[in-house]
């Protein structure tokens, strides 16, 4: 039989699929459609959950929360709603309720993947509510459920160890994560963990090798300076910090800075003994929403001004 021309086939397939073309709507329209369906007696856990997500996107957390509670009334084991609710409650400053919702999410999990994800969520919420020990246990359970874990899990694991003042355990965790995932973020976090743990000799050759191949070097100049200071090479460290600050001045937008760069600049100032400038950057980074781990090295340096010879 002769083959149909491609154009005819294309038209044919378009005609077949045209009636079922998906309609795409913007966020407000989606909410209106969900509302219409809910009000016309077709309410379900999924519909309330989906409307809650749209409300969350539109930065209307109260409405989102109400919808998530409604979703769970329809189906108390609807896992996505528990997870979404836990995160929303944490953002709304209700840490205890958030933890409770995360525990429900674990309970309602339908498979190991979901359960592991919920364990990580719980670990984050416990850490945020000042329970790093419990958080660490939850995090480790997730690893057991779904080895080898994900990039973010290793970062969380290391962060929890830092909160528990177990810095010496962090390098191994991060090195294992790097081996498992190849993520450069874990490799860099491993170097930072070596520095935090005082293992400057192990960190230095990796840092120096990395520095040679970079276009923008400020982050690694900082690491280099920290290693050099740890090894007592203060003059070289000072020169490296000055170069770091020089580059950062070009990269930091004066009015709307990247807070990660502000945290770096603060650390460079602190290591140079410029405490006023360092404290100012710390305040600015925190005001910009920097997470605790991002300013941890800066805070530590501020509390230990003797790390550099200021002559």
């Amino acid at each position, binding site marked *: *039989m*002769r*083959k*149909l021309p491609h154009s005819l*086939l*294309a038209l*044919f*397939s*378009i005609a077949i*699929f*045209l009636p079922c*073309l*998906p*309609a*795409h709507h*913007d*966020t407000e329209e989606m909410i209106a459609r969900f509302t219409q369906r809910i009000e016309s007696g077709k309410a379900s856990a999924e519909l309330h959950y989906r409307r809650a997500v749209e409300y*969350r*996107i*539109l*930065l209307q957390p109260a409405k989102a929360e109400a919808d998530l509670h409604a979703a769970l009334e329809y189906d108390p084991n609807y896992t996505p709603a528990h997870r979404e609710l836990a995160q929303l409650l944490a953002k709304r400053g209700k840490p205890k309720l958030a933890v409770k919702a995360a525990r429900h999410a674990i309970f309602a999990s339908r498979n190991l*993947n979901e359960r592991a*994800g919920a364990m990580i969520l719980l670990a984050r919420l416990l850490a945020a509510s000042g329970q790093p020990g419990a958080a660490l246990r939850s995090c480790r359970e997730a690893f057991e459920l779904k080895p080898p874990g*994900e*990039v*973010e899990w290793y*970062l969380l694991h290391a962060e929890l160890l830092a909160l528990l003042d177990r810095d010496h355990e962090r390098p191994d965790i991060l090195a294992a994560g790097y081996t498992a*995932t*190849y*993520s*450069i*973020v*874990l490799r*860099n976090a491993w170097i930072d963990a070596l520095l935090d743990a005082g293992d400057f000799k192990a960190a230095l050759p990796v840092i120096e090798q990395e520095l040679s*191949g*970079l*276009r*923008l*070097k*400020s*982050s690694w100049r900082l690491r280099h300076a920290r290693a050099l200071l740890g090894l007592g090479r203060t003059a070289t460290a000072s020169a490296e910090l000055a170069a770091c600050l020089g580059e950062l001045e*070009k*990269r*930091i*937008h004066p*009015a*709307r*800075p*990247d*807070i*990660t*760069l502000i945290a770096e600049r603060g650390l460079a100032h602190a290591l140079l003994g410029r405490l006023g400038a360092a404290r100012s950057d710390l305040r600015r980074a925190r005001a910009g*929403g*920097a*997470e605790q*781990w*991002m300013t941890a090295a800066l805070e530590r340096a501020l509390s230990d001004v003797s790390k550099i010879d200021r002559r």
Partner: protein
Amino acid sequence: MTIPPLLKTTCSATALLLIMLQAVRAEQPAFSRAPYLQLATDSSIRIVWRTERAITPLVRYGKDPVKLTGLAKAENIIKRVTATGESGSPPPLHSAPEGTRQFEATISGLEPETVYRYAIFDGKKRLTPDDPSYRFKTHPLPGIPRPLYFWVVGDSGTAGLNQAKVHTAMREYNKAKGAQLDLYIHVGDMAYGSGTDTQFSERFFKMYEPTLRNTVCWAAMGNHEGKTSKGADGSGPFYDAYICPTTGEAGGLPSGKEAYYSFDFGSVHFVVLDSHDLDRKPGGAMAQWLKADIEKTKAEWLIAYFHHPPYTKGSHDSDKESQLIEMREHIMPILEGGGVDIVFTGHSHIYERSMLINGAYATPTTAKGVILDDGDGDPDGDGPYLKSKGLVPHNGTVQVVAGHGGTNVSRKGTMPIMRRILVENGSVLVSVKGNTLSATMLNLNATVRDSFAIKKEGIIEHSPIQDPWQPSAKKETKKPESGKVIKEGKPLPPGAQRIIDHSAQWRYLAGGNHPPKNWTTLNFNQSSWKQGAAGFGYGDKDDRTELAGMKDKYRSVYIRRAFKLPDGANPAKIGLAVSYDDAFIAYINGKEVCRVGVDSGSGKDAKGFHSHEADKKFEFFPLDKKAIGALQDGVNILAIEGHNIKVNSSDFTLHPALLLVK
């Protein structure tokens, strides 16, 4: 027995449908997903395809199309099958139809920048036709400057007519230009409504099949794919379809995740982010990777893309929606601090293209203090945006929202940093050649609707413009913005009286400068303008005021002159006589009264010019009611802006007179 006509028609239609279905069935394709390319590097590529039956897969390839001497054997081809509930290696397909086999052949040891032909076999049986379109080209070595030409599409996956037209328009345009794509980037929403496996097959792979067989699509995940796929662990139909680099194998630093990654093409570095379902905060793993990646690259160009636009007022509003706000507030500072040149996004169903901006992270977005160059960026208009050589932090970025690849387009408002806003379907074609990146928005009829370029040379220092150009709040349409466009005038009426003579003196502004908004009004201070006799122009020896420096430098000239109506003159009998090349807009006392050969806009924003030769002839344009209404007793001002279609045009003429006909 008599068969009723309706039944007869229905039977005929059914029979025809069955015949068509049978024809399709008889030609049951070998593939349930035709071969497509993935993960190209300077020395390797992946070829992926699906079948619904067991085969013995082989790939033959080679530089010589006659002798495909290279061979990827079955044992070197990964076979993935439909999930059965058990995990394994290689990972099963998330939700493919039962019986699906997906084959992923890695071809390695290739030469850089080299074209290879390939063919798929089932044992000895060739499955792909002997067709030159089954080919691939390896990337150039990282850091080596090579021309690059790529296609940008977003929000296309409807399997509808507009999606097909946008694809066809690109193919026809490239065919006419003799151009071939080096790569294809998709900014997400390629398989509406939920990115299911079947939707991917029907709304992406089938729709773009002739392009995908020889062009790698490097994709960012959209929110619709995000309904069934997860960036966190790279599971779902999106991640079954795409093979994304996780270990830095295509350039850049290893991300450890398929959800965000980078790749190099010569001296161009691309970063691809997941704006949908991963942490977008500066402390998140994705942002940390991004910062490290762009600190490392030594490319000449940095191009970023992801789904949710930091700036839009199309079908979505970046001042109101959390994902868009977070990409702007958290990710853009990292990108601009690393010297990004251009950012492509989708999600919002519109085409929006910005001026050259920096530091626009505030919510809501304003133009204050963030516009570095408010020109149109068009090489034939205000000229390309200029940047320093290499990647320089905060040296200016162009944002392109390309969410117009096939689905319905719409507009909510006006984003103040945008230079071009078009509510129509299309796609973007981008060329990087040496120190210039050029981009065009091609609509679904293969018409170029926007052009801009970024040129890098020496050291360019920008400071924000205090009072930048602002886009009109009025929605742009395909029709002209300001008035009726006239293509040509009428023959000169005999015996007309001259109100402004053909050789009259005018005040004029040339040299590439553009006047302020009130230049057409009576009380505008024209003292700084030069004076010269009509006509104005160059190149065809018919101009009293020769604009010797105009060619290759600028394309617009502004002239104005006062006049009084003769006593007792009937305003309805007044008209313009103009010899022109190529286009002009005339104003009386600040009101536009005649638009010839200019589709839209005015002054430096004028667009859509039509070519016209003066040929030393005058054409007559009677004034309409609007023009008559603008006339007043006493002194009036006639102001005319003349435009050349191209800055390098061989000639230009603007030679007006004002007539009172009998």
